[in-house]
C-alpha cells in the first residue's frame, strides 16, 4: 500500500477547513473533530473491488470516479561531486462528490475536486529539510490532472509528460526551486495483484496502485542563491481508491528502496493501535528486467533498530531498520540521510530520504530510497 491514504482523505477536507479554521498544524483535537465529521465514504464513488485493466498513458491521469487519488514523486540525487539531496513532490486529489452527482455549473470555478500538494527538499550536507504545502481547487486551471498528455499540477507545481517515457517536474517555494527531467527505465510496475492492492479483508478495502520505480533523473536545484546540477533516481507512485483502510489501523511504515543491483523493493506494514502488524502488510520486489514478485507479510522481516523523537511534534519515530527477505537472500540496513524529515503541516508525518547498505545473494549492495511513517504523531485510533 502506498502512502498517506489516510492523510489524503483527511487532509484535503481538513485543508479546506483550514481556511475557516486556520488551525496551527496538526492539533490533534481539531483533526479528530474534523475526521469524525467527515463522511467516510460518499455513496456513489467507485471502489476497488477487483483486478482492473490498466492502460497507459490514460491511467497516468485522474480517476474522478474514485474519491481519493495521489501522484507521488520521491528521489535521491547527487551533484557531480557527490553532495546528496532528497526530494518529494506529491499531488493529492480528493473528490467532493461522485462525478454523476455533481450539479451542472456554469462557473469555471465550480469544483468537484480539491487538490493538495507537498514539496520537500532534503539537503543532507547542510542538514536542512525544506517542506511546503499547498491547496487548491481542481477547477479554473488552478489545479488538476489529465491523462493525455499526462499532467498533474497545483498552481505552478507541476509534473507532466514531455515525451515517450520522459517527464518533467517543476516546484518552487520560498527560495527552493527544483526542475527535473525523469526518464522511466522500466515502465509502469503494477503493485499487488496486477495493480489491485488489498489493504484489508473487507471487499473494497483496496486501491489501484502502480509505480514507476526507476526514473533516471537529471536537473537542477536552487536553494537561495545556491545552484546545483543533480542526477540520480526518482520513484513515482500513483494510487486511487475510495476508502481503503479498516478502522483498526493506526498507521503504517512504507519503504521504497532502489538498489545499485538494479532491483527495487517496495514494502509496507500496517500497524494496529496496539503496535502489532496487520496481516495485509505486503510489498513487491522488482527485478532489473522489470519482472515483479509480490511479497506478503510472511515474506519480509522489518525490525526497527533505533528511534528518534521529533522536537516539533514530540512524536517518536523509528530511526533505522533492518529489513530482510529470507527467501531472496536479501539483508538491508536502512538509515535516514537526515533524522529530521518530519512534515509539520495540516497533517504531521515523516517522509524522508534514506541510505541503504546490505547484501543480496551474498554480494554487498547499496542504494537509496524513501520511507514514509504515519500515525506516530497522531494516533488514528479507529476514526476511519
Amino acid at each position, binding site marked *: 500500500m502506498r502512502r498517506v491514504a489516510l492523510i489524503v482523505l483527511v487532509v484535503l477536507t481538513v485543508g479546506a477547513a483550514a481556511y475557516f479554521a486556520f488551525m496551527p498544524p496538526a492539533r490533534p483535537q481539531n483533526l479528530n473533530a474534523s475526521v469524525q465529521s467527515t463522511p467516510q465514504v460518499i455513496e456513489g464513488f467507485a471502489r476497488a473491488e477487483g483486478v482492473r485493466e490498466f492502460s497507459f498513458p490514460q491511467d497516468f491521469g485522474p480517476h474522478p470516479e474514485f474519491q481519493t487519488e495521489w501522484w507521488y514523486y520521491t528521489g535521491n540525487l547527487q551533484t557531480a561531486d557527490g553532495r546528496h539531496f532528497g526530494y518529494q513532490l506529491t499531488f493529492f486529489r480528493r473528490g467532493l462528490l461522485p462525478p454523476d452527482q455533481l450539479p451542472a455549473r456554469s*462557473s469555471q470555478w465550480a469544483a468537484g475536486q480539491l487538490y493538495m500538494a507537498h514539496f520537500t527538499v532534503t539537503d543532507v550536507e547542510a542538514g536542512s529539510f525544506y517542506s511546503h504545502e499547498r491547496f487548491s481547487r481542481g477547477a479554473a486551471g488552478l489545479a488538476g490532472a489529465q491523462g493525455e498528455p499526462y499532467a498533474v499540477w497545483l498552481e505552478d507545481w507541476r509534473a507532466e509528460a514531455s515525451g515517450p517515457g520522459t517527464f518533467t517536474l517543476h516546484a518552487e517555494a520560498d527560495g527552493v526551486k527544483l526542475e527535473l527531467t525523469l526518464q522511466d527505465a522500466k515502465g509502469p510496475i503494477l503493485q499487488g495483484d496486477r495493480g489491485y492492492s488489498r489493504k484489508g479483508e473487507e471487499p473494497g478495502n483496496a486501491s489501484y496502485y502502480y509505480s514507476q520505480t526507476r526514473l533516471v533523473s537529471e536537473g537542477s536545484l536552487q536553494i537561495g542563491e545556491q545552484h546545483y546540477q543533480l542526477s540520480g533516481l526518482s520513484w513515482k507512485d500513483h494510487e486511487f481508491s475510495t476508502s481503503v483502510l479498516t478502522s483498526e489501523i493506526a498507521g503504517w511504515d512504507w519503504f521504497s528502496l532502489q538498489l545499485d543491483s538494479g532491483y527495487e523493493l517496495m514494502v509496507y506494514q500496517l500497524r494496529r493501535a496496539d503496535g502489532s502488524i496487520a496481516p495485509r502488510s505486503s510489498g513487491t520486489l522488482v527485478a532489473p528486467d522489470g519482472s515483479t514478485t509480490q511479497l506478503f507479510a510472511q515474506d519480509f522481516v522489518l525490525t526497527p533498530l533505533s528511534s528518534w523523537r521529533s522536537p516539533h511534534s514530540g512524536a517518536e519515530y523509528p530511526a533505522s531498520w533492518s529489513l530482510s527477505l529470507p527467501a531472496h537472500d536479501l539483508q538491508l540496513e536502512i538509515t535516514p540521510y537526515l533524522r529530521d524529515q518530519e512534515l509539520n503541516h495540516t497533517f504531521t508525518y515523516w517522509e524522508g530520504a534514506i541510505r541503504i547498505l546490505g547484501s543480496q545473494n551474498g554480494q554487498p549492495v547499496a542504494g537509496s530510497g524513501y520511507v514514509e511513517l504515519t500515525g506516530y504523531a497522531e494516533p488514528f485510533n479507529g476514526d476511519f
Partner: protein
Amino acid sequence: MKRTALAPSLIKVGWRYLLTHPLQSLLMLVGIALGVGVAVSVDIANASAAQAFELSTEAVAGKATHYISAGPLGLDEQTYVALRTAGLELPMAPVLSQLVTSPQLGDAPLQLMGIDPFAEQPFRSYLANDDQDTPSSALGAFYAIPGAVLLSTDMAEQYGLSEGSMLELNINGMALPAMVAGLLQPRDTLSAQALQGLLLADISTVQEFSGRLGRLERIDLILPSANRDAIIADLESRLPQGAVLLQSESRNQSVEQMTTAFRTNITALSLLGLVVGVFLIYNTVTFSVVQRRQSFGTLRALGVSSREIFAIVLGEAMLVGIVGSLIGLGLGILMGRGSVALVSQTINDVFYTMTVREVSLPTQSLVKGALLGMLATFVAAIIPAWEAAKSPPRRTLSRSQLESVSRRTLAQASLAGALLAVASAVALARLNLQLIPSFGAMFGVVIGAALVAPFIMQVSMPLLARVLAPLIGPLGRLAPREVSASASRTSPAMAALMVAVAVTIGGSLMVSSFRASVVDWMEVILRDDVYGSVAGASISEPQEAIAPEALERLQTWPGIEEAHYLRNVMVDSPYGPLMLAANNNPDDGEEQVYFEAEGTGTEVWQAVQNGAVIISEPLANRLELGLGDNIVLYTPDGPRDFPIAAIFSDYTSSRGNITLWLDNYRAIWGDQSVTAFSAVVRAGTDVDAMVAELQRELSSEQLLHIRSNSTLRAESLSVFDRTFLISSALHIITTNVAFVGVLSAMLSLQLEKQRQMGILKAIGLTVCQIWSLTLLETGLIGALSGLLALPLGYVIAQVLLGLINRRSFGWTLRMHFETQPFAEALLVAIAAALLAGLYPAWRASRRSAANAMRFD
C-alpha cells in the same frame, strides 16, 4: 499646618446645601446629565459608525495592501489563474462580491462575498478560530453546490437558521435559492461583528448569481514592503490591458474622510448642547454662592481659609457633576441606540452601504463622556467657586455691593466676549479654515455672543422700563429693573437660552435652506415622467443592471415618446474608485444646474457628447479639480484623460460623480448595462396608470421599481429628511437643555426674591400683580434672549451652510431665508421663559407676606 482634608462639618456645609435645595440640585443634575447624555450618545453613534466602517472594511478588504481591478466589467478570471500559476509566491486572493437582501435575513443589505477559501488565509484572518472547525462536510457543498453560503453563528442564531437552512437571496431584482452550508464560529467579538452582514460563498456561486461568469471584481494582494516597487513593476507587466494595480487604502480613504467630516459635524452640534449645560451649571452654582455669601463670610471669620471655601463650592458642584455625568452616561446609552440608528441611516444614504450595524458599546465613549461632564462642571463652577473663596470675612454684605461687583465683572466679560466674537467672525470670514478650526471659530462666536448678551440686557432694561412704564404702569418699571438689578443670576440664564435658541435657529435654517436647494435642484434635473431601476437598488445611484428584455419592451411601449438610459457604475481612478453616471438623454445638458460651466447647457452637452465629462461639485471640491482640467480614469485601454466641461450641482452623494455620454461610455468600457431608465410620456397619457402597468408588465423575472416623477421626488425628499433627522434631534435636545437652564435660573431668582415679594405683597400688590410681575420678568428675559438669538442663529446657519457643509459634504448651498425658524425660535424662548416663571410665581403668590419676610 496646611490641611488637605476638609473638616467633616465643612463638607456638610456643602452637601447639606444640596439637600436643602433639592430643586436646584435637581436642575443642575438635569443640565449636566442632558449635556453629557447628548454628547455621549452622539459619540457612541460616531464611534459605532467608525467601528462599523472599519469592520466592514476589514471584512471586505482584510489585510490586503493592494488590489488589481479592471473597471465595470470586472477582471478576467484568467488574470488571476495566470498570476497564481506564475510562481510569484505572493499572497493573492480573488474577490467577487454582491449586495444582496434576503427575506430570511431581515431584508437588510448584506454583502455576499465570493472568495476562494484556499487563497483567503493571509487576508481575512478575522475568521480564524482556534477552538472549533467548520464541519468539513459543509465544504464539499461549498465548492460544488451552487448557492452554498456560510454565515456567522450569531447571524444564524439571530434569524433562527442552521446548517442546511434554505435561503432566498435577492440579487438584481431576482430571487435565487441558497443554502446555509456551514456556520462560522468567529474567534472574538470583533470578528463576530465583522461577520455581521456578511455572507460568504464560493467565487463560483457569486459568479453565477450575479451573472458575472468568468469575471472577478478584484484580486487582493499583500505586497511585501521590501522591494515593493520592483514587485509592482513586475506585476503590472503581467496585467492585461485595462487591469490596474491599486493601493487598498485608496479605496477606503476618501469615504473615511467624508464620514469623518460628517461625524465631526454632529459632534460639534452635540457639544453645543454641553455648552448650554455649562451655562446652566454656572448659573446654578453662582446662585448657590450668592445665596450663601453670608455663610461664607461667617466661615471666613471663624478661620476657614479661602482654599477651603473654594473646595466646598467646587466639591459640591463636582458631586453633582459626577452624579449628573453618571446619569448622563445612562441617558447617553439609551439615546445612543436611537442615534446609532440615525447616524448609520445617514451614512447609508449619503456615503456607503454599511453592512455591519450592531457594534459593541465603545467604552471609550463612556469614559470620554464622564470626563467631559466633570470637566464641564469644573469649568462652570470654578468662577463662582473662586468668587466664593474671595468672600471677605465679614459678617454681612449688602446685596448692592454684590451686584456692583457682578456688574464690573460683567463689563469685563462683555468686552472679552465682544473681542472673542469679532475675532472668531473675522477668522471665519477671512481665513480659509478647515473643518475643525471652523467649528472652533463658530464656538468662539457663540460664546463671545453669550458673554456680550448680559451687557446688552443691562443697557436695554432701563430703556425698556421707560417704554413699559407708561404702558402697564409701575409693574412695567419694576420688572426690567428687577431683571437688571439681579444681573448675577439673570445673565447666565439669558446667555444659555440665547445660545440654545440660536443653535436651534441655525440648525433649522440650515436644514430648510438645504431642503429648498434640493427641491429647486430636483425641479431642474427631474424632467421625465417615468423612472425605473432594479428593485432594492439605491434611489440615486443604482448599480444593478436591468434585464435587456425589459428595456426593449420599454422602447416600444405605447405612449412612450422617448426613453433614456442611465448606467451608474464605479470605476477606478488614480483618486480611488469614482462613480460614473453615463446617460443618453440628449437634453441632459439643459437638465443640470451648473455650478461652473463654459458656455450654455447645450454647448456643455455638445462637449460631453464629444468625449468630455461633467463632474459634480463635491467631486470637484474633493479632488480639487476645476473647469478645463482633465480627470483621469482607468479604462480598459489604460489611464485616460477626460476634459471637464462643467461642474454641476448634485446633492445625491457627497462622494460626487462624473457624468458622461452613454455612447462614449459604452465605446470605452465595452459595457452595455443599463441601471436606470427614464421616459417621457406622450402628452395626455395617464402617467400613474402607465407606471402601474409598466411595473406589472416589466417586472417578470427581475423585480423593477418604476416610479412616476412625483413619487421619485417624494422618495428623494424623504431620504433627505431622514439624513437630517439626527441634526433635528440634536436641536431639540439642546433646546430642552436650555429650557431647563431658564427654568433653574428663574426659579433661583424668584426663590431668592421671596422676601422682596413679601414686602411687595405687604405694601399691597395683589396676587394677580405678583403673577404678572414674575411672568413679566421671566418673559422679558426670554424675549430678549430670543431677540438676541436671531442674529446669532443667522450667523450659525451661515457658517453651517457656507463653511461646514462645504467642508464636510462638498455641497455649496445658498441661504434660503425663511422667517419661520426665527419666529418659532422667538416663541420657544418666550414660552420657555414664561413656563419657567410659573412655579416661582405660584409660590410667591401663595406665601403670606409675613411668612415671606420672616424667611431669612
